[in-house]
């Protein structure tokens, strides 16, 4: 009955830690390029039509991508209630900022084209840029805080404030995810667009790749230098981060040689490697306390009881294949590159007032 009082993790708890990890990985892999595309939009576009091309590359899929976050949140609530409760109340203001950003960004995609008014579209473009860049930064800050430690006293009591979350290490973590997602977005645009936008996205990817490599390398090195829980679970030797860094190092070359599909796979691999490293670093904790190791919030202490985990496992086992199937199918349906409408005759009749 009292599984939560024993200290050795059961298989079910490990399974759910893994599944939630996979949900986050899926979220960052998918919404990672959405965020990147949104952040790069002002830099790869020369006019309104370009911006529309950029938005249309993620138009059919961004909402489905965001559901990975909702499902990760729901699964954490169900499988590790204390983790959910502690993180979301502790990261209160940071989470508020993420939510505000996601609200404006999501509305922007749907609302932007509903009025042919340059000012209306200008403001929604701002929402897309800031609404993409801010979460891309803040998710990295949050995950860095998870492993580097948050002000957690006994019984998962939060003792710090907002500024305890924005330390140099966490900021480097945030810059890693921001630059990585931007690079991921650039390789996605290279894969999904044609014409000038594609050319600009490639140019940006080649310039961004070395910068991203340096930031991520710095972050990983710092992580190995300081993180308290790094000694286990295959992190020594650091095979996984090395794979990620090699992939990242290759992005520039792949883009230059027009291997756009491989470039996208490389940025995806880098994202997966980075977050897997962080999650493995965290295990078997779910939050590290900066006050004392005694107050680390462990996976076992925060887990739901066996029965809940069993029910959830069955539901996940039965329905996840369908979700993966139809979501992949969407990408297949919309696999064509997006470009500016071909000839003036075919172009949608819309006047652009500037």
């Amino acid at each position, binding site marked *: 009955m009292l599984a939560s009082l024993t200290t050795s993790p059961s298989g079910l708890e490990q399974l759910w830690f893994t599944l939630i990890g996979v949900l986050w990985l899926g979220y960052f892999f998918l919404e990672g390029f959405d965020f990147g595309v949104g952040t790069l939009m002002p830099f790869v576009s020369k006019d309104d039509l370009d911006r529309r091309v950029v938005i*249309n590359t993620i138009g059919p899929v961004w*909402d489905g991508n965001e559901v990975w976050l909702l499902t990760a949140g729901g699964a954490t609530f169900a499988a590790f209630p204390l983790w959910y*409760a502690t993180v979301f109340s502790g990261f209160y203001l940071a989470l508020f900022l993420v939510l505000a950003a996601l609200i404006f960004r999501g509305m922007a995609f749907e*609302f932007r084209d509903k009025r042919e008014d340059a000012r209306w579209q200008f403001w929604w473009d701002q929402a897309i840029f800031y609404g993409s860049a801010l979460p891309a930064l803040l998710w990295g800050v949050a995950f860095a805080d998870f492993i580097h430690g948050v002000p957690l006293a006994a019984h998962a009591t939060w003792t710090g404030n907002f500024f305890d979350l924005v330390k140099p290490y966490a900021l480097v973590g945030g810059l890693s995810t921001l630059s990585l997602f931007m690079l991921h977005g650039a390789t996605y645009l290279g894969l999904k667009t044609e014409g000038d936008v594609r050319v600009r996205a490639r140019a940006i990817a080649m310039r961004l790749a070395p910068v991203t490599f340096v930031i991520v390398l710095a972050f990983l090195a710092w992580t190995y230098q300081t993180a308290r829980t790094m000694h286990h679970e295959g992190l020594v030797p650091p095979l996984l981060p090395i794979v990620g860094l090699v992939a990242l190092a290759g992005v520039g070359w792949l883009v230059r040689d027009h291997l756009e599909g491989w470039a996208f796979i490389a940025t995806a691999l880098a994202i997966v490697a980075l977050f897997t490293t962080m999650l493995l670093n965290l295990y078997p904790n779910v939050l590290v306390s900066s006050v004392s190791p005694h107050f680390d919030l462990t996976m076992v202490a925060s887990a739901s009881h066996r029965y*809940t985990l069993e029910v959830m496992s069955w539901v996940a086992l039965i329905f996840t294949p369908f979700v993966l199937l139809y979501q992949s199918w969407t990408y297949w349906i919309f696999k064509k590159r997006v470009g500016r409408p071909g000839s003036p005759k075919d172009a949608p009749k819309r006047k652009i007032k500037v």
Partner: protein
Amino acid sequence: MNTFLAGISTLSLARWQFAITTIFHFLFVPLTIGLGLLVAILQTAFYRTGDLAYDRMTKFFGKLFLVNFAIGVVTGIVQEFQFGMDWSRYSTFVGNIFGAPLAIEGLLAFFMESTFLGIWIFGRGRVSKRVHLASIWMASLGTILSAAFIIAANSWMQHPVGYAIDHATGQAVMTNFWAVMTNSTFIAAYGHVLAAAFLTGAVFMLGIAAYHLRKGHDLVGFGKAARVAMVVTVIMAIFTMFLGDNQAKEMEVQQPMKMAAAEALYNTQSGASFSLLTIGNLKDNAVFQVRVPHILSVLATNTWDGKVKGINQLQKEATAKYGAGSYVPVIWLCYWSFRIMVGLGFLLFILGGVALWLIRKRRLEQSARFLRFATWMIAAPFLANTFGWIFTEVGRQPWVVYGLLSTSKAVTLISPGYVATSLIGFTAIYTLLAIIEIGLMIRIAKVPPAIETPAEAERVPELIY
């Protein structure tokens, strides 16, 4: 900041925040559910008949559906995360049980509605007509499923079943998932909420069609839309009332205090009457009342002379069971929100009935006054939904999980400054969103669709967004 906030507790700020964000979110959700189904019906009619009028209506209402859907989605993200932010002690207590339907809702419903809606928006002309039609039905099914899981979660708070208390951690743990998903409260509430959502969509569609019929725009198309909407309005108004009445019997057994609060019935009574309205003090000093004999007993117990328990007696029972304290919710709020909900429900039934009568008499298009009235009535289902939830949630107080956890013990132990910041932030953002959203909806709703040739109707723009 701290002196300003002195005396304002985290609890009251968190309650205001939950009320504001949830009411706002649920303005859009029922319309998404209702309009999703209606758009699917319109598109099916076009698929079956090839009549371009249905195609125009599908596109016209589809656009409104999408604008509304977007705001439902983005405000829904807040819903999922604010349990952890403001109600972390609640989240820890209920996570074993409450978290499961939330996670399953994401996996089963949110993926379905968002993915298939993406296919519907971008797939016109890119996927086959059959797949395109299937995608709106799948999206609609997703919205209907998502309501099931969230109502199941809420119903557990109203009437906890299938659980045990782990005394080592103080948490509620799930012992029977099937019991949670077949909770009698859930079955009753889900039907009522779903019928009300379809009613909301139908009244919305009827009201907008009425506007254009009055202006003489696309009489064929809007005439058809009005007919579909009218049928759904009548059927769903009946279902909503019938299922709501059914809920009242459950309530008298499971939460008698809420039922007593709905009538401000202070003392237990047999053959209790129902007051349509009260002027003056609800407790003991009513200046003027209109009462219908026996109706409260019928509502609560289905019998003419059934005994309905009063607030005073229930308070006494509750202190004996749970210890000292007040177990009485805010009576005036329960009393009036119940009446507004029920009254508007009846009004909507009459609206549907009159529309039905006018259509049978072939006079709908000429009845300018009725058409104007129908357009104004768009507000009614939104108010009824809102007051229905205010009644349900306020009537459960002081409990957040009925009989198990009081609201005051559910709130996060955090400085009021944080909650005040997010409360002000969300209120400002939501006010802005409401202005933008309503402005855009009215703008789009006022522009009648262009009459197209079959070739024009098939044309697909290269860029959708």
